[in-house]
């Protein structure tokens, strides 16, 4: 059995009377793409927020590379190697695509309390950043402010920034959201290659992507994991079909 | 004798707290519902005081002056909202700060132009000019007690307004989700103008009432505004209950601090140096309290969401 990179046990989170996360346990193993699917309101994004550290869980443990990260903040977890992308692109709007990626490169290289060298002339920042942009096909738009990029370009920039962190695990929150068929296809290709670098926990609605990519699928309904298994196992699972009212599967 | 003095200071603290509550309630409503920080609130306080003093001097009636102050402040508030604040809803805080700071300059200098640099005087209305006996033997100004009474009445009134009326419902809904209530067809523009005018009227009322205790002059509003900010920070933005608790706390701590600290330090450092040190520290006391509260509750005691 491959090494467990991310291990979530009995995670709980309630907002008042609403159980957003109800005793969730799941694993992310090395080399795999583990998709997390479920109807709207199932609590997928809340779960991602808890893993990333943006929301504090009420109970349960989150272990990353064997270490309990439940008490750490977002930035600390990112430094440990948890690379998260956002469902709604979260970018530094005034900075160019290149400078956005350079922030991630700078973070990976260590201290940000340096004032001596201008970043734009620092090839140890610009070159790796440009390489990431090339990987997602944005090299030609490197100097365009993030606010002026198209929606699909912004999604790709999200990915590039996350890649630049060289994380030990990826948390992708609906990366396909709003992408047309062309964009989705190339993104699927990219994610497919990524799994060798680090395992991916992929929250997605786009079922084509899920079926093409996932080694394992977990289904979240009303905050609970109702099934975990391979794609074919999940497709034939009656409870899952019921949860989706027979759609998609 | 000491008890009487203490009771008097406590009542003074409450009266000070009432004034702060009137300012803070308006400010916190405006921020909670509209997301705008309004530095010009002190100017509205000042306008209320000036309107009251001017009308009272012209007609001889404090009560007419009071009505004038409410009307003037509310009207000024509505105009400010329509002309300026309306353009600030989607702007960042820096722009709001600068625009409302500009309003302070305009109102202050404008008032100085109209009324000159000398303070106006406002007399306490005859019916409230007496004093009543307190337990312990002191006598306390009836007027100040009336102010405390007004504060309690306003607090109850606001509570009823917000929890029991349709306007209040819209205000509460607006605090949680601005876009939603617009989508539901509530006339946001009018709601905002009404809320702003309401907050302004409260400020004007505070200014008018205090005008009879101290003089009415340009610049009287800003120190009160800053204290109201302290109240809001302590109480939590958007919470009227927080404004009430915070105002009482600030009013009492400040008044009692200024009364007791000089005496306490005089015991250790002798009368002259002790009084000086005590007075200087007393002037910093509420800010220290604010800092302490923030250390444990960075969003105040009753922030929305806690």
């Amino acid at each position, binding site marked *: 059995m491959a090494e467990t990179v991310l291990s979530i046990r009995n995670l709980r989170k309630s907002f008042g009377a609403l159980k957003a996360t109800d005793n969730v346990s799941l694993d992310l193993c090395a080399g795999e793409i583990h998709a997390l699917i479920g109807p709207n309101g199932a609590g997928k994004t809340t779960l991602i927020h808890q893993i990333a550290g943006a929301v504090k869980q009420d109970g349960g443990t989150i272990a990353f590379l064997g270490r309990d990260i439940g008490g750490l903040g977002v930035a600390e977890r990112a430094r440990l190697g948890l690379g998260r992308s956002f469902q709604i692109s979260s970018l530094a709007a005034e900075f160019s695509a290149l400078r956005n990626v350079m922030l991630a490169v700078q973070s990976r290289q260590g*201290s940000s*309390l340096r004032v001596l060298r201008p970043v734009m002339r620092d090839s140890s920042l610009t070159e790796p950043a440009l390489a990431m942009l090339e990987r997602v096909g944005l090299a030609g738009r490197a100097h365009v402010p993030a606010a002026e990029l198209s929606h699909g370009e912004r999604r790709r920039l999200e990915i590039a920034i996350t890649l630049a962190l060289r994380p030990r695990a990826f948390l992708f929150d609906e990366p396909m959201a709003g992408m047309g068929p062309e964009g989705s296809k190339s993104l699927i290709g990219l994610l497919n290659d990524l799994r060798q670098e680090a395992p991916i926990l992929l929250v997605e609605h786009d079922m084509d992507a899920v079926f093409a990519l996932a080694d394992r699928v977990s289904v979240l309904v009303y905050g609970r994991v109702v099934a975990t298994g391979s794609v074919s196992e999940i497709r034939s699972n009656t409870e899952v079909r019921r949860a989706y009212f027979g759609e998609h599967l | 004798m000491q008890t009487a003095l203490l009771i008097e200071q406590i009542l003074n603290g409450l009266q000070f707290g009432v004034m702060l509550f009137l300012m803070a309630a308006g400010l916190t409503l405006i921020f909670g519902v509209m997301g705008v920080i309004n530095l010009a609130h002190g100017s509205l306080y000042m306008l209320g005081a000036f309107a009251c003093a001017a009308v009272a001097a012209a007609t001889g009636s404090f009560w007419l002056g009071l009505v004038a102050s409410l009307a003037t402040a509310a009207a000024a508030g509505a105009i400010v909202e329509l002309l300026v604040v309306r353009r600030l809803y989607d702007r960042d805080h820096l722009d709001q700060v*600068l625009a409302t700071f500009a309003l302070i300059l305009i109102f202050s200098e404008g008032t100085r132009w109209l009324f000159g640099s000398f303070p106006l005087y406002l007399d306490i209305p005859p019916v409230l000019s007496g004093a009543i006996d307190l337990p312990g033997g002191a006598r306390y100004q009836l007027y100040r007690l009336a102010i405390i009474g007004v504060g309690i009445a306003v607090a109850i009134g606001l509570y009823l307004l917000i929890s029991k009326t349709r306007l209040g419902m819209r205000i509460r809904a607006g605090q949680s989700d601005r876009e939603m209530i617009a989508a539901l067809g509530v006339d946001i523009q009018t709601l905002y103008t009404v809320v702003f005018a309401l907050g302004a009227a409260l400020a004007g009322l505070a200014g008018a009432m205090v005008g009879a205790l101290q003089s009415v002059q340009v610049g009287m509003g800003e120190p009160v505004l800053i204290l109201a900010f302290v109240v809001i920070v302590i109480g939590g*933005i958007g919470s009227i209950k927080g404004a009430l608790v915070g105002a009482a706390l600030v009013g009492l701590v400040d008044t009692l601090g200024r009364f007791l600290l000089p005496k306490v330090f005089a015991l250790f450092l002798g009368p002259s140096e002790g009084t*000086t040190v005590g007075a200087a520290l007393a002037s*910093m006391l509420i800010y220290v309290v604010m800092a302490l509260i923030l250390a444990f509750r960075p969003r105040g005691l009753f922030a929305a969401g806690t």
Partner: protein
Amino acid sequence: MKRMRSETPIGFLLAGLLLLVPLAAWALDEPFYITLATRVAILALAAVGLNLALGLGGLVSFGHAAFFGIGGYTAGILATHASTLQPLMTWPIEVGGSDQMLVIWPVAMILSGLVALVIGAISLRTSGVYFIMITLAFAQMIYYFAISWPAYGGEDGVPLALRNAFPAIVTSLPLNFFLICYALLIAALYLFARIRDSRFGAALQGARQNEVRLAAVGISPFPIRLAAFVLSGMMTGLAGALFADLNRFVSPSMLSWQMSGELIVLILLGGTGRLFGPVAGAMLFVLLESILGGFTDRWQLFLGLILLGAVLFARGGLVGLLAGKVHHG
């Protein structure tokens, strides 16, 4: 590829103008204009400090007068003790006063830096509106303390009998003092530019634009912001010390909320976050103050109207108007 910013030539022009005017005034024996230019330089320096926190970091501090005033009072108190030959304190060590600028400046910067550290540590844990109100409140607290502490003048402030001394320069000559202030301003502008273009500046501006994104790439916003706030306070503190020497007087109004507002106005008028914004803003402000102020005592009414217009319609300030929007490469 390095973009040529159209802002740089305009900035050099403004800085050059600021140097030319007092030189011309000296040649024409009009010391008043040298003093005016010195005032511009010092206010610009104070605003460069604020620009670090506000323009780059997005930290709307309405309490920077605290640092301006602390710098001023440091200069005034040290100079007073130097002239009366009374020590500042005798326990645990004896500390005397000083009338040397080279001593006063570091002390002023260290003190304002320490105060900025405390205020920043408390207020940077909050956000948005809270931060504005808290910085305002702390500055007010220091103001009230200063006017109720009689040892150093209380409401009357602290006079400086003589301008403090700088090695090899006769500081009482207006042009000499101007050149000292101007040199410090240029140094500050250079430092600002280096910070803006550095990794620290990138993280700081990243925190301003999107702190969630910054944390997600592994950089905590808080230490970055705190460091920027402290640097910012130190620079404004230095300006305060110079201001005390310019006027040979420390007024408690240096600590007032009006002063804090004035500093923010300077930045807006010139262009928030722009390198030469503070210079443009200070020049504009002092011009308005002298020209409009010459016509009417109520000139601040017009300042308010201009400011309101600028906020509502001309957001980029003077530099924005002349040089266009910022290009972040």
